């Protein structure tokens, strides 16, 4: 008998914790999401059945679970922000959210989270919105497995895929962003993780960091974005195992680092970019075990950088491995593999006996006088480069890898 009471008690407990379930759809008690949200009490679940819902702006102002069955469509008709979350502990799962309004003053999004914590947005498809998912003043929010697509043509007429502002402890996992201004945008966001996302074909940056400290982005793919990935005015960022590829153009970089310090760039792949890594005003960065392959410029390290360590990277088939704009060198290069290295290894310790000067004369010339690119690979220039390698006169002679590897690292 006691056991029975326990079970009944547990049942009520569970019932209270789970809240009740409200079904929205054709032929159900509620046909509108708005009314369902209105009657629901905190902790309830709203299950939305398949269909098209054109209800204008839906505001969720209490802790609810909004679950879509078979991807119901929420349409903003290009007039409204679709979902506004203004409460903690809201879950949004499995919707198609499309056609939000476009306004540059209040930045409407497909889903916008206002000053709320513990919000989960998952398994949604966002299409043709101004901003995809927008989080402002959010903490401990999770954005997971969403597909975000837009058809932006000009930078100023489209928002970012995932936009986070003044937030903390976010998890952004497994999303796919395509065709927005920036794929993922972080401004004043701290302690957050970006993991396994794919940001392709965005107009500006695949990932854009501003003033966001103590974050990590791991195992993401950034391909064919207007200008690659930018990490600016930030410290303590960890960049592990990402792919940066095919960011082509005038001012396009695989990874653009500007005014950033104390960060790690480890195990990334930079392939087929105009510039693999561009560093300006960076300090105390460790770049290690990256594969830098087939870029126009492997790395551009401006003279404003200091105390960076570049070690154990593979530089393979880049047009120029390294380029810089001055003669001051305050960075260390060590144990990298350079495919242009022509030294020997007599004691067979797999480290070249001669130091390697990664900076070619011609890359210095091109930096100073860009049209000289026209003469690249001509016999004259090859001669100049060879003589410079033997007796460095124009290139800084401390720009040097004292222990270049003889064989590429397996990365």
């Amino acid at each position: 008998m006691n056991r029975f009471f326990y079970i009944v008690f547990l049942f009520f407990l569970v019932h209270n914790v789970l809240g009740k379930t409200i079904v929205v759809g054709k032929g159900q008690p509620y046909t509108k999401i708005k009314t369902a949200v209105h009657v629901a009490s905190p902790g309830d679940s709203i299950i939305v059945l398949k269909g098209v819902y054109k209800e204008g702006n839906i505001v969720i102002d209490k802790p609810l679970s909004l679950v879509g069955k078979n991807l119901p469509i929420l349409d903003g008709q290009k007039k409204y922000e679709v979902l506004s979350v203004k409460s903690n502990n809201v879950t949004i799962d499995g919707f198609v959210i499309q056609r939000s309004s476009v306004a540059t003053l209040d930045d409407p999004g497909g889903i916008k989270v206002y000053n709320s914590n513990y919000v989960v947005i998952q398994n949604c498809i966002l299409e043709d919105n101004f901003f995809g998912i927008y989080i402002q003043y959010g903490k401990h929010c999770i954005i997971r497995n969403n597909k975000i697509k837009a058809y932006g043509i000009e930078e100023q007429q489209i928002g970012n895929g995932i936009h986070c502002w003044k937030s903390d402890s976010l998890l952004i996992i497994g999303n796919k962003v395509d065709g927005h201004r920036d794929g993922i945008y972080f401004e004043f966001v701290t302690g957050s993780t970006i993991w396994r996302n794919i940001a392709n074909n965005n107009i500006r940056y695949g990932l854009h960091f501003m003033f966001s400290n103590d974050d990590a982005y791991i195992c993401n793919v950034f391909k064919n974005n207007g200008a690659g990935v930018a990490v600016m005015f930030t410290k303590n960022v960890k960049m592990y195992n990402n792919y940066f590829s095919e960011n082509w153009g005038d001012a396009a970089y695989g990874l653009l680092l500007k005014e950033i310090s104390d960060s790690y760039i480890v195990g990334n792949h930079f392939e087929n970019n105009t510039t693999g890594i561009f560093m300006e005003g960076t300090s105390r960065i460790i770049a290690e075990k990256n594969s830098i392959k087939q870029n126009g410029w492997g790395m551009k390290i401006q003279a404003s950088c200091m105390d960076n360590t570049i070690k154990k990277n593979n530089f393979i088939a880049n047009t120029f491995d390294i380029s810089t704009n001055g003669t001051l060198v305050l960075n260390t290069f060590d144990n990298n593999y350079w495919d242009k290295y022509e030294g020997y290894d007599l004691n067979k310790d797999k480290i070249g006996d001669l130091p390697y000067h990664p900076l070619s004369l011609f890359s210095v010339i091109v930096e100073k006088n860009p049209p000289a690119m026209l003469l690249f690979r001509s016999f004259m220039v090859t001669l100049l480069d060879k003589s410079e390698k033997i007796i460095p006169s124009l290139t800084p002679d401390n720009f040097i890898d004292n222990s270049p590897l003889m064989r590429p690292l397996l990365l």
Partner: protein
Amino acid sequence: MNRIIKYVIIDILKNKIVVAYTIMLAVLSWSAFSLEDSSTKGMLTLLNIILLTVPLVSILFTTIYIYNSAEFIELLLSQPIARKKIWFSLFIGLSMSFIVSFIIGAGIPLLIYAPINTGVMMLLLGVIISVVFISIAFLSSITTRDKAKGIGMSIMLWLYFCLLFDGIVLFLLFQFSDYPIEKIMVIITALSPVDLARILILLHLDVSAMLGYTGAIFKDFFGTTLGFLISLCLLCLWFIVPYWISLVRFRKKDL
């Protein structure tokens, strides 16, 4: 005319230099591709062959060949054959043998190892460069009767196109670096067939760098179909014009 071409080709084959040239090209390109671990480096070696060796061999061999066949030409002139035909047959015979030896020597490894676009492009440009320098050799050998002078002139022209021209361009680039000279530079490259060929190949080899801020200008011109066609036409002019001038001189020449 066909018969004269046949005689010229048989004569060149008997000479064995062109055969040696083919074998040399083959050895260089096969070893370039099989020794290096990436095909890019092999292509760079081939690029240097196209830009240096091919012009040198074709211009020198052709100049000397024409001087040496002066008696053969005189013999032909005593027959009822138009001068135009004789000169043209010589040109075709020489061009054919050089084109075939380039295709056999360098073309086969290129098509096997290089990516197909780049391979075809380099093959095409190698062929055009051979013909261009043969036609320049025709011009220099008709300009003077003195053999030493003619050969000297050929060597000078080779030096100019392969080395000096780039030096002059580099010098100009630095002298006028304060001015927006990118567009003018594109025009200036058209003044050297070697540079034109090099840039067209660069657009395939170093495509990532050519998309950088400066390369973009060249990419915008040479990378488009129109630009490519224009540069091909310019390259063709580089063998049509010298040949045509040499033809005019040959027709008027008192032998």
